[in-house]
């Protein structure tokens, strides 16, 4: 043991290092989230948390499950590829409950709604149907003549 005779101070110092390292490990265990590093250098559980955000737009499949009649009318018209919520707005509150009448959607005002897409502008693609609202039928709501779900004039008044 003569080699270690005067080495006590080194052992005490080394012990301090070991203790500090253990403290570091304990602190690290509690500070680093459990799922950190599950998929990469980030908290894996964050993915599930982001996916848990509530849905506001129900999706056209939900709409068509009940409103098949409207879907049929729409299918043959010019608006066949316009999803329901593009005009009616986010309706998950209406679609996601047992009694949809508790969250009845507000019918959009066609004077404002139709103009958003169909107001004539040199910037819009040339083939897209456009009108100057003031000249087209001064101030009257569009649905006086056009039925929004099948807007062509010869569509015969279907709603």
């Amino acid at each position, binding site marked *: 043991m003569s080699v270690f005779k005067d080495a006590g101070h080194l052992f005490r110092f080394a012990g301090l290092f070991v203790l500090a390292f253990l403290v570091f490990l304990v602190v690290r265990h509690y500070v680093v989230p459990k799922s950190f590093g599950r998929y990469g250098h*980030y908290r894996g559980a964050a993915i*599930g948390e982001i996916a848990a955000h509530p849905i506001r*737009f129900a999706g056209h499949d939900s709409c068509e499950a009940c409103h098949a009649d409207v879907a049929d009318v729409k299918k043959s018209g010019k608006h066949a590829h316009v999803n329901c919520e593009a005009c009616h*707005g986010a309706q998950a509150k209406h679609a996601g409950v047992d009694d949809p009448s508790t969250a009845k959607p507000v019918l959009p005002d066609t004077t404002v709604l139709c103009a958003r897409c169909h107001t004539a502008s040199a910037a819009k693609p040339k083939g897209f149907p456009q009108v100057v609202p003031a000249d087209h039928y001064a101030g009257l709501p569009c649905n006086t003549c056009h039925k929004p779900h099948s807007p062509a004039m010869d569509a015969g008044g279907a709603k």
Partner: protein
Amino acid sequence: MNISRRQIMILLPAAAVAWKYVLAGTPEESPNYKMSDHWWSMLIDIPKCIGCGNCVRACQAENDVPDGNFRTWVERYHISDWQMANPLGAMTNPMTDPQVISPDGGKEGFPVATDESGKYFFVPKLCNHCADSPCTQVCPVGATFISPDGVVLVDQTYCLGCAYCVQACPYGCRYIHPVKKVADKCTLCYHRITKGLTTACCEACPTGARQLADLKNPKDPIHEFLKTHSVQVLKPQMATGAKVFYNDLDGSVR
């Protein structure tokens, strides 16, 4: 404790196998959705966009985006005709100097354009969900990341709000949330696409100018579209591996 060489030879491989399972982690929470089966992207068909702003409004409604910030927005480009720039005979270069407007991100549409000269087009923009994204690489705390299904996300409980990622994004797609004081951005409606729905902007687009696409799904129509159309990404020279594909994108778009 004495461990023989024989015991070591058995214990080491067993420990290696166990460690592999530790690294792989537990399976995801959503049972019907497997992250490794998807690689999300988006297709934007410029000639179909009419600049109605439906996508911007839908995004705000779906994701509680604060006023004045945008996860997606629409820009209107006007490439004017070539004109004399000065009496010496030099000409303007509308290709390098396009007129771009995006009033309130295009949320309420665009003013009527009356100048018939030149050409116009709309460019909807959003996070490009880059496969080699600069924004995730600069995060000092690991609060932003590319998910295993290819979506760039922000862990808002972990984010410090240092805004380094906001500066790093070459497309200007991130912002600091004015209330939460953390980085916020397009999640590609991660809460929707993991449940089989499309994104809010795609759902609300009346002309089909925006299409969610899954590059890992061999039946996704995007594969045929990419083969048959002239498709570009924004700032390809930055090698970000951007996954928002623009059909018929004009060279003046930056």
